[in-house]
């Protein structure tokens, strides 16, 4: 029998002063062995105080090993859960270990770790669930999207902005920070359906009296992998967005006590 390798979890300081926020960076990763290492190294070079947790989402490549070697804590799901499921693992870990903030960062390198601090500055002192989204704006960065996709995003942004009472331009961004109250909710209720993880999570927070805001962020080209860009896929994406939005609107928010 060999060692399970699940031993290298982020180290826990036993006593933390209340003023100092404990930040956990959660990186959902599915077959991202090419990029996950450099993403981790880059985050560590920005701020070595942040703990890193890679949720290896049933990868069949060496993602877990690459992440561990780069110095992150790794939890491996026995099969693919999807981004939503992987994030719920991260939120539960954060809740169990008393973290104050969870920041979601993609493993493909499209999020700039230097901008995490800007997300963290987006929280205010109110004791309500809060989420700060790193939003790409039209024209910023070299990120281009298909028209159908753009229509979908605009539609989504408009209706979710109304729900949140705050102007949001990029609600499907996977670059987000969550405070302690949001962690407590999402550890139980983070949506796991495809696309619902980004859209419905926002709605859940907004409807349970939370505060959802955004900060500008520049998306970079992915280090590995490529976004789906075919016309057909973009149209399916639009249809699914409309569906998810519809479901989100009729669904009762989970009972948060």
């Amino acid at each position, binding site marked *: 029998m060999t060692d399970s390798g699940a031993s290298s979890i982020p180290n826990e300081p036993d006593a933390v002063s209340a003023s100092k926020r404990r930040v956990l960076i959660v990186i959902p990763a599915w077959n991202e062995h090419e990029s996950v290492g450099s993403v981790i190294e880059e985050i560590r070079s920005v701020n070595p105080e942040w703990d890193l947790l890679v949720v290896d989402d049933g990868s069949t490549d060496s993602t877990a090993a690459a992440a561990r070697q780069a110095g992150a804590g790794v939890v491996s799901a*026995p099969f693919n859960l999807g981004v939503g499921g992987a994030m719920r693992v991260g939120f539960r870990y954060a809740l169990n270990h008393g973290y104050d903030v969870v920041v979601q960062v993609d493993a493909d390198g499209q999020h700039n770790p230097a901008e995490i601090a800007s997300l963290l500055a987006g929280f205010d002192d109110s004791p309500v669930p809060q989420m700060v989204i790193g939003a790409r704006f039209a024209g910023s960065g070299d990120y281009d999207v298909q028209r159908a996709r753009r229509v979908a995003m605009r539609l989504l942004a408009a209706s979710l902005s109304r729900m949140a009472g705050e102007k949001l331009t990029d609600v499907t961004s996977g670059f987000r920070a969550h405070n302690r109250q949001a962690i407590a909710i999402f550890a139980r209720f983070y949506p796991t*359906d495809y696309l*619902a993880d980004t859209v419905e999570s926002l709605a859940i927070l907004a409807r349970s009296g939370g505060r959802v805001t955004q900060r500008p962020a520049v998306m970079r080209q992915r280090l590995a992998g490529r976004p789906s860009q075919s016309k057909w896929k973009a149209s399916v994406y639009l249809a699914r967005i409309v*569906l998810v939005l519809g479901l989100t609107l009729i669904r*009762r928010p989970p009972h948060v006590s």
Partner: protein
Amino acid sequence: MTGVHIIALVSALVTITVIVELIRRRYIHERFAVIWLLVALVIAFFAIFPTIFNSLAHSLGVKDPPSLLSVLGVLFLLLVCVRLSWEVGRLQERTEVLAEEVALLRKEFEDAAEGAPTRD
């Protein structure tokens, strides 16, 4: 409006209400919500415009529209059964993987609890 149409309309309304309520209460997940929402809408459509269904049946050469309805219904339910079998298989596989994972974790946990694991 005949009695049949009223029955159709009422059952369509009941179907839609039940399905929307189940989705609203989060008993039905997205992957199945789509199917049942479509079913509800189709039933409602033909309940409101029964003549469209009748002419559809006639254009397909079916003399008795209700029998087309039964055939389509049975075919659809068959498809749903196939889909459910597939889902059940997937769930079973995942349950097995989880059980294996738990068994392995328990062993490792016991080894760790003993302090010095008895391995070479």
